[in-house]
């Protein structure tokens, strides 16, 4: 098993970005398939429960065929045209593009979801501020807001029940959800204002340079993670170039 959970989140983010950039340079089924096969082989060693894997990656499995369908129907045509209706034109060219798109969405989406499952927001923020040197006031502000997600979800449930209690939950679903969304925004800004007072009172945003109670680790595991991302991207590109299917897209 690969202990991916303990790797610095910044390295995971970097690896995902590297693979994505290689895949973005081309649209062909060979590079996407190569990357996907390598990724799945690596993911198999992460030791993720199958149920959790399918649940979290579900959006990717839904979106891939739909994006491909759009390309199939409206993609650039080439070769034999099999079907034509208004703007729809299915051809050899659009079929090939659609297949490539399907595989590419999977190859970009799946590893990102899997790498992000194990990310702890606090470690991520530490990495962003200490390793990437992003401005610490903003990184920590965002981290403090992320911690409030649990409160937002509780608020949302209460807002829902409260609408039933007020006698307005029988009809007008869309309007009701919009109203709840607005109420949640009011509540969250109120909480945010109070939180900012608490943070400011604890010296946040002052002129003293900040120290860090936790060190954001960076060592062999992190370099290795980036290297694996690079290898996957390079292998996919090389295989595609060798088989002659690699095509640089610019616009």
């Amino acid at each position: 098993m690969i202990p991916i959970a303990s790797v610095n989140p910044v390295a995971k983010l970097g690896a995902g970005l590297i693979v994505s950039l290689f895949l973005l340079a081309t649209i062909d089924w060979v590079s996407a398939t190569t990357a996907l096969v390598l990724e799945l082989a690596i993911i198999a060693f992460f030791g993720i429960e199958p149920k959790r894997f399918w649940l979290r990656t579900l959006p990717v499995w839904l979106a891939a065929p739909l994006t491909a369908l759009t390309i199939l129907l409206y993609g650039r045509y080439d070769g034999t045209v099999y079907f034509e209706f208004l703007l729809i034109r299915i051809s050899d060219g659009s079929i090939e593009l659609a297949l490539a798109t399907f595989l590419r969405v999977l190859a970009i989406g799946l590893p990102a979801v899997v790498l992000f499952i194990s990310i702890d927001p606090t470690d991520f923020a530490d990495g962003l501020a200490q390793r990437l040197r992003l401005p610490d006031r903003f990184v920590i502000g965002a981290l403090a807001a992320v911690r409030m997600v649990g409160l937002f979800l509780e608020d949302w449930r209460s807002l829902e029940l409260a609408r039933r209690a007020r006698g307005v939950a029988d009809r007008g679903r869309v309007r009701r959800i919009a109203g709840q969304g607005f109420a949640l925004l009011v509540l969250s800004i109120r909480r945010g204002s109070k939180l900012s007072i608490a943070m400011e009172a604890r010296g946040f945003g002052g002129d003293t340079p900040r120290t860090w109670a936790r060190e954001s680790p960076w060592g062999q595991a992190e370099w290795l993670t980036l290297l694996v991302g690079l290898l996957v991207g390079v292998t996919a590109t090389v295989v595609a170039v060798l088989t002659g299917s690699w095509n640089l897209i610019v616009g």
Partner: protein
Amino acid sequence: MTTTASSSTSTPTKPGSRFQWRVIDIVVASVIGVASGLIFVVWNIASVPALAPFAALLPGLQAIGGGFWLFAGVLTALVIRKPGAAIYGEMVAASVSALIGNQWGVLTLVSGFTQGIGAEIVFAAFLYANWRVSGAILAGAGAGLAMAITDLLLWYPGSALPFIIIYTIAAVVGGMLIAGLLSWFATRGLAATGALNRFGAGREIAKRV
């Protein structure tokens, strides 16, 4: 520690810079970003069935629903009124969406960044002084245009010209209505609840009433 409070001397009020981020700006911008990110997550899934009829009606028209991924930047900027607020709000929301997991993976961050820039450029062009409905709608359009460019490059390379044109127009219109107009109404509503009393957006409305 001795603490004294007295009215004997008078300190003139020192106004902070209009462009400087206070702690409350950072925290509330983050909170709006995170809350918007949760709406993105819901829309990531709900948009698939919701936009299918649009795509069937006219290819590319589905981009009109993209506005629900664009409002975070405009809304944050309208509330906070500081340089960078549009980019920051949209980036935080995109990060939440990516961390929870979606179909666009790491590239969600790229989209968030470009969409934020699209809105930011408009606010900057007005020297961060137009927070009226016109500014909001134009910023929404900017975000929509940025989204169209990014999406067509990243996800629909190899699409035919009619699709490109329709997609771009739909994205801009969706941006204007949902990200622009809706955010402007939301900001007004927020100001009326008193939640923005410590912000320029809130004080302005309070004065008018």
